[in-house]
């Protein structure tokens, strides 16, 4: 489903990733971990084409990401659910409108949008907050809105960048349960995190990135 083959990336001549190779199978839930600045976020950004590799090949489903032309990028992203470290929720839009945005860009009609958004918000248990604005929600609730937005278009891949970064243990567990549920339905999930408690004894594959390389790979 996701392939990194001999991928290198540097910023201003400082290497971030050096000849990284990785295969993520369809329906797998994989954790990328490592210290800050190890290149975890960069790996996700390379996967959704927010960054271009200096070398190597990246494939996500049918898309050869490293060769995508500018106008082809939106189509890739419409098929990937992305959970950002800083949420990227629009403060002037309600919870409903934030989630609906992911479907509006598909050109879906309002009736279907309402149906799918309500379904997604029910899944993350936020149906009662549908008319709230993001700033009136807690960090955990905001993250659940982001998950609902990422999942509402039923993507084939879900990429999550430090999804529990600012959350307490209880909220982090809720978020992890949601990821497990999403993964159990067949969605390939890639989570970049420095929080070991998230994957400890989860039974999922973990790759440890350090000093620009994949240092080790194991099943938690």
């Amino acid at each position, binding site marked *: 489903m996701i392939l990194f083959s001999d991928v290198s990336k540097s910023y201003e001549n400082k290497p971030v990733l050096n000849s990284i190779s990785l295969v993520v199978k369809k329906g797998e839930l994989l954790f990328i971990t490592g210290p800050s600045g190890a290149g975890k976020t960069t790996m996700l950004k390379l996967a959704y084409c927010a960054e271009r590799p200096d070398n190597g090949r990246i494939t996500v489903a049918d898309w050869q990401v490293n060769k995508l032309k500018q106008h082809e*990028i939106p*189509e890739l*992203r419409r098929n*990937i659910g992305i959970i950002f470290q800083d949420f990227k929720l629009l403060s002037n839009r309600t919870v409903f409108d934030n989630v609906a945005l992911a479907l509006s860009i598909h050109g*879906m009609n309002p009736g279907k949008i309402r149906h799918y958004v309500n379904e997604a918000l029910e899944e993350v248990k936020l149906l009662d907050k549908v008319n709230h604005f993001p700033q009136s929600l807690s960090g955990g609730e905001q993250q659940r809105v982001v998950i609902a937005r990422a999942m509402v278009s039923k993507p084939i891949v879900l990429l999550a960048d430090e999804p529990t970064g600012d959350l307490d243990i209880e909220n982090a567990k809720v978020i992890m349960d949601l990821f497990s549920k999403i993964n159990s339905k067949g969605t390939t999930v890639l989570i970049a995190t420095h929080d070991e408690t998230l994957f400890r004894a989860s039974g999922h594959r973990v790759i440890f990135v350090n000093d620009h390389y994949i240092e080790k790979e194991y099943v938690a």
Partner: protein
Amino acid sequence: MIAKGSSNGERFEILKYSFKTAFKSIVHEKWINSLTILSVSIGLTIFCSFIIINSNMNSALQRWAKSFGMVVYLNEDVSKEREESIKRQLLQDTDIETVNYISKEQSFEEIKRTMGENAMILDIFKETPLPSSFELKLRKDYLDIVRVKEKAAQIQRLDGVQEVQYGEKWLSSLITIAKTVKGGSIVFGAAIFIAVTFITYSTIKILLHRRKEEIETLKLLGASRGFIRLPFLIEGFFIGALGGIVSSLVILGLYSFITYKMVEFLPAMKFLVTSLPLQVYLVIPFTGAMMSLLGSFIAIGKIRY
């Protein structure tokens, strides 16, 4: 939900969404948009005023052209045969539309009629002191100061011709004014075009900056360039169109005021003031819309993912 390409239904929904977003923004950013509409309308009103002045100058010129005449005075001692010969030459000239001979006696009678009661002072003349003459009308398309001068000089050279008179200064001034206004309209038109485009460009740039966060999110979610651009283009189009509508109404109002109110005091105005054709009042909003659309398009620039 693997989506490849868009169906017509999806495109229609995106268009609906874009219109909704654009109108929301027009209302939400009412102050900046109102100022832009005002600026666009002022620009277009100034430009259209120039067009009206230009069109009035042209119609005045055309009206005057219809009555434009040249008077060829003959020498006092010119023979009848020579008069006939000159008349034949003038009639053969294709640049001259009509030739009207006025004898010494006719000229004298005309002067008497013009002087009315004071004509008695002319009784001191035993015979007419005026020379016989020809009144010429040139072709309408001949109203060029250089050509008229050349024609006058050419006639002046004919044997038996004493003097050729035409409103040289008046014609020269009128043509110069008409040319200046025409040139001014072109320069003004270009300046207004740039100004209106730039005004909308600046507004859309500000709106883009204010919605920077939203655009970034849209790009990350996979919104196409069209999806991101369309609301701004629609907004720019409507700002320009509204500016044009205001401008049309102002021009129409001003024209009505001039024709209906000022004519009461200056009846001559009725013949001077030429209105713009009715279609122009529809073209103005469209022109405003297209200028603003261009400004918006430049402002959005290239969207890079």
